[in-house]
């Protein structure tokens, strides 16, 4: 699954001119320099001051332009994630596009019974197994929150479960720098040391500041730990349009960028050149129902802008795909998953999480992951561009067949299909005629996806983890759970 050529679309979407991008960036700089932000971590404030920022009498940190520019120039414009075995798997940067799940869904559609029920630890194992088997899922994020477990050390348990059930790179979430530290220790054991982990990062940590303009102690502490350990980190705010950010698209992006870039300044001052991922999550508050949405078209508009800004700044970006507001595995799911996923591919968005998300990030369905995988496969073909060599223009072939002939038996047809670009084949989508479709059981996409999920879960899983490493990891996680430093159940 590793060391594969990254997918980079030949067909691309870009809609902002340099003048517009400059205006957005300048506006974000004004927010950083004039409005400032609340940074609730003393050491971080001292670091920011050393980086040229001011701590003013109102308690807010203000970040001047040179500090941002310095951070932008030291941050790498690409970095690589490696799989469990240490093989390069994701080159994050440029227009390379990768997909994977999201984290912490509280509910699942049970893959066996179809019941909507609270998420469990075994759901995380299943998400990892399914992603491992799907060729277009590149990384794994937990997909579920184990609601049955004591919350103490729960993210370390989650990490261990993902690691045991797949070999692909991981994207992780942690409660604080304490459990993140344990997760880093376990990953270092897998790699054979801290330096080796720094050289070949196994995971990216996802960290969020709180909009608007607030950087809590735990978020900042995790960010700094990642900088110190050389673990890639995405520092991504999730401002909600019209609630925790301005309602205007541009305003949402400006604030989100200011939040993310403060993280970048701190991170790069601590460890210049350490891998950092830029992003602003797109959430929209439905102003009639009060329900937040993942698939509102206004959110998509912000997303287009954010990804373009990331490219313009030269930073790898955090993206989103494969998710829906639908509560059912239905046509709305297909439509929203399709639109958002295709946008990510057209944009060349780098790391696209949240595949398998339903109902504003509360419910997960493995079928949705399988459906998204098929969609990505199809659109990798679509966006690969058409070759136009003489062989492709095929004037000689057209001459040979001539008017009223046909191409079914021409060698060119066979050569193209067998040795050339071929023809994309659906694995889930129907192309059977009515008779054959009925004969094969008359299955709709949902049912076919469900059966594919079953087949994956019944197949042999990935190679098991070295038992010595596993025992060591379990020991570290057990120690974390017993530690007085981790929070007690709330």
């Amino acid at each position: 699954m590793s060391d594969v050529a990254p997918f980079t679309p030949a067909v691309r979407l870009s809609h902002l001119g340099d003048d517009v991008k400059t205006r957005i960036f300048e506006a974000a700089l004004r927010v950083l320099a004039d409005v400032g932000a609340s940074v609730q971590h003393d050491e971080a404030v001292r670091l920011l001051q050393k980086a040229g920022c001011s701590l003013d009498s109102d308690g807010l940190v203000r970040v001047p332009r040179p500090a941002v520019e310095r951070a932008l120039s030291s941050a790498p414009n690409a970095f690589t994630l490696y799989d469990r075995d240490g093989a390069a798997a994701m080159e994050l940067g440029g227009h390379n596009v990768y997909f994977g799940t999201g984290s912490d869904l509280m509910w699942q559609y049970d893959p066996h019974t179809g019941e909507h029920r609270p998420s469990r630890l075994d759901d995380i194992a299943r998400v990892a197994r399914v992603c491992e088997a799907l060729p277009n899922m590149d990384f794994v994020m937990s997909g579920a929150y184990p609601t049955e477990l004591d919350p103490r050390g729960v993210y370390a348990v989650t990490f261990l479960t993902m690691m045991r059930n797949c070999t692909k790179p991981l994207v992780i979430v942690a409660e604080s720098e304490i459990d993140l530290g344990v997760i880093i220790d376990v990953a270092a054991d897998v790699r054979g040391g801290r330096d080796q982990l720094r050289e070949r990062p196994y995971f990216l940590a996802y960290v969020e500041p709180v909009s608007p303009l607030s950087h809590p102690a735990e978020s900042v502490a995790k960010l700094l730990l990642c900088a110190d350990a050389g673990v890639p980190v995405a520092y991504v705010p999730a401002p909600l349009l019209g609630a925790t950010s301005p309602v205007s698209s541009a305003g949402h992006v400006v604030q989100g960028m200011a939040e993310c870039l403060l993280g970048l300044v701190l991170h790069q001052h601590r460890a210049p050149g350490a891998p950092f991922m830029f992003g602003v999550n797109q959430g929209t508050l439905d102003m009639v129902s009060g329900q937040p949405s993942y698939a509102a078209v206004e959110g998509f508009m912000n997303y287009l802008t954010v990804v373009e800004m990331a490219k313009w700044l030269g930073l790898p970006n955090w993206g989103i795909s494969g998710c829906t507001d639908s509560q059912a595995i239905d046509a709305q799911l297909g439509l929203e998953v399709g639109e958002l996923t295709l946008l990510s591919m057209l944009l060349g968005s780098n790391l696209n999480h949240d595949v398998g998300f339903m109902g504003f990030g509360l419910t997960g369905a493995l079928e949705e992951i399988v459906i998204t995988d098929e969609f990505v496969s199809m659109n990798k073909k679509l966006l690969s561009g058409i070759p136009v060599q003489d062989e492709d223009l095929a004037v000689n072939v057209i001459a040979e067949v001539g008017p009223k002939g046909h191409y079914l038996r021409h060698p060119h047809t066979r050569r193209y299909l067998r040795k050339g670009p071929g023809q994309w084949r659906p694995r889930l989508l129907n192309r059977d005629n009515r008779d054959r479709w009925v004969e094969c059981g008359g299955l709709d996409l949902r049912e076919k996806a469900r059966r594919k999920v079953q087949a994956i879960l019944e197949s042999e899983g990935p190679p098991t983890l070295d038992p010595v490493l596993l025992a060591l990891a379990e020991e570290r996680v057990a120690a974390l759970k017993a530690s007085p430093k981790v929070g007690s159940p709330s």
Partner: protein
Amino acid sequence: MSTTRHAIIEEIIEAVVEGEPEPVIAGVRRALEAGVDPETVLNDGLTAAMTSVGDMLDRGEVFIPDVLWSAEAMQEGLALLLPHLSEGASRSAGTVVLGTVQGDVHDIGKNFVGLMLSGAGFEVVDLGHDVTAEAFVEAVAEHGAGLLGMSAMLTTTMPVMSRTLQLLEARSLRSGVRVLVGGAPVTQSYADKIGADGWAIDATKAVAVAKELV
């Protein structure tokens, strides 16, 4: 069968599946020289290979042009084998007269059916498109065809199928020929209504129905 003979048959199968005529011809020649029963070469080699290719197409493992190439390679092998086969052995699955009906110029579907039938061992007499009822009937009589296949892509041209059947009756040829109809607007119930013997939704099914009919 000895290991060598078995290996030769396997080579023939592989060459047919790959759609390579030369190795098929070489394989058949070697099989005959090694004293393999010609009917074994036909049934266990050439025919078995085409069945395998058909299954691969069903599973989406090969493309339609691959099947056509395999069929062509198989035919080359068969031509070499024919003089060695006993009279009773199945040399041809039968003769089919094929055409798109009068008033209709759509013939890629019909061409495709023709290629597939030919791959399945039928002798195909393709009358092309815009074929009148009279032309169909004359060709059936001329070639002594056991099967007539008519294609229509337009609802307005479908009645030619019915007219052809009536003309076959009038010329007392109807009992000697089985009639297969197809094309996007043509249905099983239409086939039943006009008294055709078979209908198929696509080219692959057409081969199956044709084999059942003869």
